[in-house]
């Protein structure tokens, strides 16, 4: 038994975990909020990515778009972390061994790393290309970011059926 499994098992036994498992209405409600959060998060990052790819709002400076849309992306991300944790707590032990859950988490981490690298390298020099054609690396980051966020949505949808169908593993010794 790995420490991670013990942690997930403990998470499922907490008050919130029990609450999520025991209430028929709580899970769909939190799931609906999770989808609403994904609209805010993915749509606002997509606007920025489309601008970086040179496909959308090209006459507006990149820094201005980033300044106005990223707060909404962070709002959506906060909503996703809170609702996602609640959903996870309701079936933590099933999700533990689930490959799709692991893929989804890995994709989110990769999206975060790409955003961080973009912010620390190309975006540092944004003033030099704010209104001109974005450099190749910015375009590349934009396309990869869009692909990853939509893949995260697809993984989330897949997770919904795969976790529900997966057996409950035995409790840790």
């Amino acid at each position, binding site marked *: 038994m790995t420490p991670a499994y013990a942690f997930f098992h403990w998470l499922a036994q907490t008050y919130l975990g029990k609450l999520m498992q025991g209430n028929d209405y709580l899970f*769909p409600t939190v*799931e*609906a*909020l999770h*989808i*609403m959060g*994904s*609209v*805010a998060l*993915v*749509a*606002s990052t*997509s*606007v920025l990515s489309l601008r970086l790819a040179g496909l*959308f*709002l090209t006459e*507006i400076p990149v820094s201005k778009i980033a300044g*106005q849309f990223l707060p*909404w992306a962070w709002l959506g991300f906060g909503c996703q972390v809170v609702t996602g944790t609640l959903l996870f707590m309701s079936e933590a032990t099933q999700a533990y061994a689930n490959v799709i859950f692991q893929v989804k988490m890995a994709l989110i981490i990769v999206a975060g790393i790409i955003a961080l690298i973009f912010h620390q390298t190309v975006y540092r020099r944004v003033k030099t290309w704010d209104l001109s054609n974005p450099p190749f690396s910015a375009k590349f980051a934009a396309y990869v970011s869009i692909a990853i966020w*939509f893949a995260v*949505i*697809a993984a989330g*949808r*897949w997770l919904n*059926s795969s976790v529900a169908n997966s057996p409950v593993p035995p409790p840790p010794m």
Partner: protein
Amino acid sequence: MGHENAAVKVSYTAPWAQVSTAQIPGAARDSSGTTSRLSGFGRERYNLKPKFTKNLRQYPRSTEMHILYSLSSWLENTLMGRSIHDSVWLFPVIETVHLFGVVVLVGFASVLDLRLMGVAFKDYTVSMLAERFLPWMWTGFVVQVVTGILLFASEATKMYGSGVFRAKMLMIAAAGLNALVFHVLAYRSVGTWERDPVAPLSARFAGAFSILLWFGIVGAGRWIAYS
């Protein structure tokens, strides 16, 4: 009277109406698979148990089959409906595309709504945002309509009886009406107020209604699966 034994098949002229009562859950069937006419009205006619279901109606209220039920039944039995219903992976895949579409439609519509409400994006003109975001919203809307019809076709008669599904459709109609009213009234004079950080009251209301309705539609969409 010989009416009780006279087996009359329920039939209509429209193709989607040509369904037998055998498709109504719980309907009484005689040996020929048809129901006796004049043996009762409403529930009695189909010999349905007066099952108590909150907000759910699995069968038409009137003695005649509701045209929407007939339409749902026809759609469900088309090759398209059957294929999606029987396939293990088609429904989830179409649902995923439906989720992609909701991000584009609701996400991009929200930008315009927040601008109209005066909450965010105040330094862009309303007409510029509308001009840029509307093509994406229409793309998303078309994706939603196409994938939505496919999803509906796979379980149409179930959706016919779902209160949440009806609420979702009504909210979509209300959102469309709201957009139409906004376009005809406030948007006509957009040139006079589009640079103001705070839009006129009617435009602010249109934005607020729109964002509430669209997020309500998203919530209802998730709830359909549990209804």
